[in-house]
């Protein structure tokens, strides 16, 4: 197992290098000037000073090499637009908030989505089943911005129950995390229901039942455990996605996280922020996938043996 983990970790290096190269070349391809954020034309002298300051006057391969060197030493460089801050500052200050938002959203998904799926599968075609599946279909289909706008309008402006936006107290965190958690919640509910129904048909479940085991024990020990494998598979990339893909939710709820920078940095041509966040995102996805593989082995020993 240890050898496997190490091998996988070593593989992340070329993957990250490739990600940097691709992002770097793509960023160079699009037109636009990071030093011109308004209509105002930038005088040649000012442009030259700025390019020199941020080493954009060097050939692209030198820039790339410098950047890789920076990443290797944990220095993601200065932001080209937020002049008082480095990419490290931005990540250090704002990434934890996105992680918190993502985990809370994930919490909603697990807390509500998994039980909904389980209960629906245990009583298929019941009213609860139809109800929860309707809810999850709707939850899946509604875009974030719509849910967010409606929640703020009713819960905050109309009923005055929770603050509209911000990220200071626990009350501030309810609406954004719920909004972000809605899609994974719906996804989990449907996934768990499906796999549960399938597992319930398995021979070993019938055997356990025939042996006279209590139904509750059959469900919790045998059915649930095996039904959760696909959930775990889906969970890790999903977690990566909700941590970094929360642009809309962060923007609408004014959550000072990192997701919204990802998109604004692209339109502002803030190359170093785009690069830094891409590297961060790819590392998260790689690590998340690794964790899944490890959890797989624990949940289903067969996969571990197969790997040797």
């Amino acid at each position, binding site marked *: 197992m240890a050898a496997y983990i190490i091998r996988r970790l070593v593989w992340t290096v070329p993957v990250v290098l490739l990600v940097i190269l691709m992002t770097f070349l793509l960023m160079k391809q*699009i*037109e*636009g*000037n*990071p*030093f*011109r*954020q*308004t*209509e*105002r*034309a*930038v*005088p040649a*002298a*000012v442009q*030259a*000073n*700025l390019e*020199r*300051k*941020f080493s954009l006057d060097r050939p692209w391969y030198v820039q790339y090499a410098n950047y890789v060197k920076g990443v290797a030493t944990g220095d993601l460089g*200065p932001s080209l*637009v*937020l*002049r*008082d*801050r480095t990419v490290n*500052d*931005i990540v250090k*200050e*704002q990434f934890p908030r996105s992680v918190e938002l993502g985990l809370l959203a994930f919490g909603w998904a697990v807390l509500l989505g998994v039980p909904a799926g389980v209960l629906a599968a245990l009583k298929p075609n019941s009213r609860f089943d139809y109800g929860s599946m309707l809810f999850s279909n709707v939850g899946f289909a509604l*875009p974030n*911005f*719509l849910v967010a*706008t*409606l929640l*703020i*309008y009713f819960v*905050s*402006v109309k009923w*005055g129950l929770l*603050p*509209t*936006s*911000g*990220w*200071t107290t626990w009350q501030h965190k309810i609406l954004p995390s719920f909004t972000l958690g809605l899609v994974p919640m719906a996804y989990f509910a449907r996934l768990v229901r499906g796999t549960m129904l399938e597992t319930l048909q398995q021979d070993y479940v019938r055997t356990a039942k025939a042996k006279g085991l209590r139904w509750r024990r059959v469900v919790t020990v045998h059915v649930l455990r095996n039904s959760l494998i696909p959930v775990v598979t889906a969970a890790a990339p999903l977690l990566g996605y909700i941590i970094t893909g929360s642009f809309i939710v962060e*923007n*609408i*709820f*004014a959550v*000072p996280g990192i997701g*919204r920078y990802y998109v604004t940095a692209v*339109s*502002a*041509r803030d190359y170093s922020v785009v690069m830094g966040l891409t590297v961060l995102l790819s590392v998260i996805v790689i690590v998340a996938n690794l964790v899944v593989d490890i959890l797989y082995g624990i949940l289903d020993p067969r996969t571990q043996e197969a790997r040797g």
Partner: protein
Amino acid sequence: MRLRVRVLLAAALVVAVAVVAAGCGGGGDTKGAAGDAGPAKNQVLRMAWGAEPPSLDPGLATDTTSSNVLLNIMDPLVRLGPDLQPVPALAESWDVDGKVVTFHLRDDGRWTNGDPVTARDFEYSWKRTLDPKLAADYAYQLYGIVGAEAYNNAKPAQAAALRDKVGVKAVDDRTLRVTLTSAQPWFVQQAAHHSFLAVHQPTVEQYGAKWTEPQNIVTNGPFELAGWKHDASITLVKNADWRNAGKVALDRVEGRIIVDGTTRVQAFEAGEVDALDGGGLPPADMPRLKQLPEYEKYPALGTYYYGFNLKNIPDVNQRRAMAFAIDRQSIIDNVAQADQIPASGMVPKGMPGFETIEQHFLPPRADLEKAKQFMARADDPKQKITLFYNDAPGHKEIAVAVQAMWKELGIDTTIKAQEFAQYLEFLGPPPNNAVDMYRLGWIADYGDPMNFLELWTSKSGNNNSNFASPAYDRLIEKARNTPDDEQRYELYRQAEAMLTGPNGALPIAPIYWYTYTNLERESVKDTFQINPLDQFDLSKVVIKEA
């Protein structure tokens, strides 16, 4: 985003119904006479800022949010009065002698660490902003000073020598002498811009790029930066040691950074903030918001225009026809909806000298009859044109409206959107041949028509129209050297006539002059004021008893 707008409209309808219903119920309410109420005990203003300030370094800041934070935590040499004329601030007086401006500083300016604010601070700061190593985006705001551009453009080897030649000199602690490249009568007024603020040298040198963090920063204005949680909040507290602190009512300004326009409005409506920063209200919500007692609008020095590519649409009669076919008032009433003013020229209403400069040629309403007459006179008019705009809220709707108006002249307009950063590169200069017409806007840096008219000189980096006239260039150059206001306004009138007058070349069809729209609680509405340059002075704000 389209869907979102629709939802908001639906939400707006719900609110409108609720408002009407509520209005019917409470007939006998007496309106509180807001004017009579005294100041409230609790002088804490909660406001929403529309963006994270990209930098609170006066040398590096380029945007409105940073500028407004800076102008409240720092003391400029001058501030702008209601008519945009400079009024004394840290400088108690100034003398202008041709190209030499001398500021006389007050003796009670203090940095928050107790150091006196001196003329040397300004000399250091301005030269720092011009230092090629700092690479300040707005270094060019100071290019009117002798030697400034050369120093900003210097190679490392010559930098030190050129630095000493920059025409700014602290004669003593309280006298700052500035030598300009030409008379530039607007220079004193320009000193109210945040690029001309002083920074505290020891602090800047000690902390480098981190000097603007609240734990490090040393300022000299009516408020101190007590907290700055990036992307979340900005807290200002009254600077009790400021030279005029007795006149400042607010104890604290608790600012939240809310980028999304709709969320900003919702935070206001939920009672979480008392004022927005004037950064604009969502167009889709405008009809409803305009009805609120908290709605406020201010004239802005800004022009929204469509530029012509003179190479592609060479006949001035066709340009006249197109400019006359635009129904500006209708665009404002039905599309833009933010109480803008129909624009008849490049220089916006409210600009000093406007009455002299205005041409009265382009009408606020479409004049189709005249437009068709012009079109008939056009030699081989271009029937198929392409209009470019940047893909930000509102522009497309205006383009579609104008497209329909030009259809009346038999012109088929293709409209094309581009993402902003790409768009700016695409337009040029040199002007892009693929562009027949393009949308742009200009918001003033300072209150002199020069800031608008110099855009159309042949070497201007903002001129994408192929309009190049030596006569026009000469007029602008002459105005630069004409200190007398009336004489200069006359030159500006001639220049504006060359652009948008009856015999003008019409390189642009101006659409509207901007307004700033805002929401402000009635308790602060009287004292919270945004000037035509989008600046607000929090030291003047008093919260009244509700």
